[in-house]
């Protein structure tokens, strides 16, 4: 059975960066977001990432780095290989893969 190995950057601001490794069954056609949501149910509910619209690509919240490239997790296809996920580098980190992406005038400061 083919598997995907996700290397996911964990931790909040100020914490030493680390990548947790999760192995999961590869399901053809799944998006990276599907896999992350599956991982929260099966492995670690504390894994943090942003999404709202699931797979419709309407909310534009699920942006992250896949192997160093900016993607929407809900339109990036999962592949049966090692994949590295990191938070957006040019945004303030909240935790794990979640960053501050709200427009500045819509934040609570």
């Amino acid at each position, binding site marked *: 059975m083919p598997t995907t190995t996700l290397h996911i950057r964990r931790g909040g601001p100020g914490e030493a960066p680390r990548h947790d490794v999760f192995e999961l069954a590869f399901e053809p056609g*799944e998006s990276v977001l599907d896999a992350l949501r599956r991982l929260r149910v099966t492995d670690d509910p504390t894994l943090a990432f942003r999404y*709202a619209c699931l797979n*419709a690509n*309407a*909310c534009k919240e699920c942006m992250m780095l896949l192997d160093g490239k900016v993607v929407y997790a809900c339109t990036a296809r999962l592949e049966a290989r090692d994949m590295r996920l990191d938070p957006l580098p040019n945004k303030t980190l909240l935790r794990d893969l979640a960053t501050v992406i709200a427009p500045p005038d819509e934040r*609570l400061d």
Partner: protein
Amino acid sequence: MYAAIEAVRQGAASVLLLDRSLIGRGGATVMAQMTVAAAVGPGDDWRHHLADTLTAGRGLCDPALAALLCEVGAECILEMDRWKVGWARAGNGFASVQAPGHDRARCVYVDFLSTGPAVSKALRAQVQRVGDAIRRVGEVLVTDLVVQDGRVTGAVALHVASGAALTVAAPATIIATGGLTRLYARNSASANMSGDGYALALRAGATLLDMEFVQFFPIGHLAPRLIGMDPIMWDPFRYKLGGRLLNGAMQEFVGRWGGDAENGTYSTTRDLATYAITKEVEAGRGSPSGGAWLSFTHVPAAELRAAFGPVIDRLAANGIDLTRDCIEVSPIAHYHMGGVRVDTAMRTDVPGLLCAGEAVGGANGANRLSGNAITEALAFGRLAGAEAARQVAEGAPAFDVAAARPALALLAAEGPAVNTAALVARLQHIMAADVGPFRTAEGLARAAAALATLRAEVGEDPPGTPGLAHDLARQDWLDLRQMLLVAESVVVAATARTESRGAHQREDFPEMSAAWERNLPLRLRAGVPELA
């Protein structure tokens, strides 16, 4: 957003627009790809639209609310046009399609499959034009309303980005939190649709109605897997191109379950199509993934391209060529007809608390016509905004933080670690298995028992410690607290209604009964939703 704009127009000096996600991106509106029903075409009149809405509602619409939806809704559509939403044009007027249940072409849209994003964008631009009177703050998850002497005076919320607890003082509060589709494993809307508004209203002392009427969208995408597309997308294809609904043996079947032969057109209402597909699958004649086939293979490539342009390329990127491939579809939780009981000014039973949009119950009765939901969101938003401005001008009691203490204590509590994501998934499976479009007393009792077990496992306090940024485990716990109450409300109402009507089908009571032509109000007593 319409409510905020209208409130300022009617004199409110300061409006706070909160959303648990990004403003204007977190709900169903931005996801809606199809059409909006409004009597804005030549020869049409809102009264014709009303007649169709009442028929579809199977005797349960609140006629006054339905009339407002149709009349004010049409005004909102015209105002949105002045706000440059970009309704598609045909000749001198709006292009429109005839959706099932409407007596004529009445559904306007923005090409291609862009209605919801265009509506959100136009409203957002207007909100920004209003300027400082509307303060927008995203990532604020409202967890409780604050009630003083029977009046809502504000809210308690979690700031998702920091994990901080917040209090909000407000002389008037409008719930516009959308529906409850997240209660179901297969659903079409966003992860924010946990039914929060229903739970907030119940706890504040308001009445809910018609909670048993969950609309399932019959032809939600099932297979092959698609990414970057909304599962409801096949509906506009059917409006424009007809299409054929086929069983596993590639035969038409809707007629067998009481529908008319479609002859390549789209004429079957949602409840009937849901019934036909479910029954065909039960009879062992479903498609391989357990749904029905939808075929456009008879439609020439040029016609497909003219109707859906870039969407055809997005499908190609997913490996689908509609001239060659059929897709599989099956019913998916989509919309909720029930909700908070309001009067014609969108006032709930609790002073200081108003409601708007899908969160309102009663306008659509037992079954909603396609295209009525966006119209409802716009019209009721506008009405609620005007009423809120009026109430603010009247003045309200000062916010007393003492009344917010229990809700703040919950956000400060530290409970044991539990896998809240898995518990959410369990709730969704309980609801999908026994509280879907087809129900029985036995299944509903099973769901009630399973929800009670789940409630015990969820416990009294959110897991972990407060104050962590973007803490999804804790957020899921707070959502579960609301989802459980809302799920229990659906089960109580569905158990009580011993008949079949519209979106509520009881296999043990298959007939519609005249004695049941009434709404079912629910209130909270000692923490439990009960028939009022």
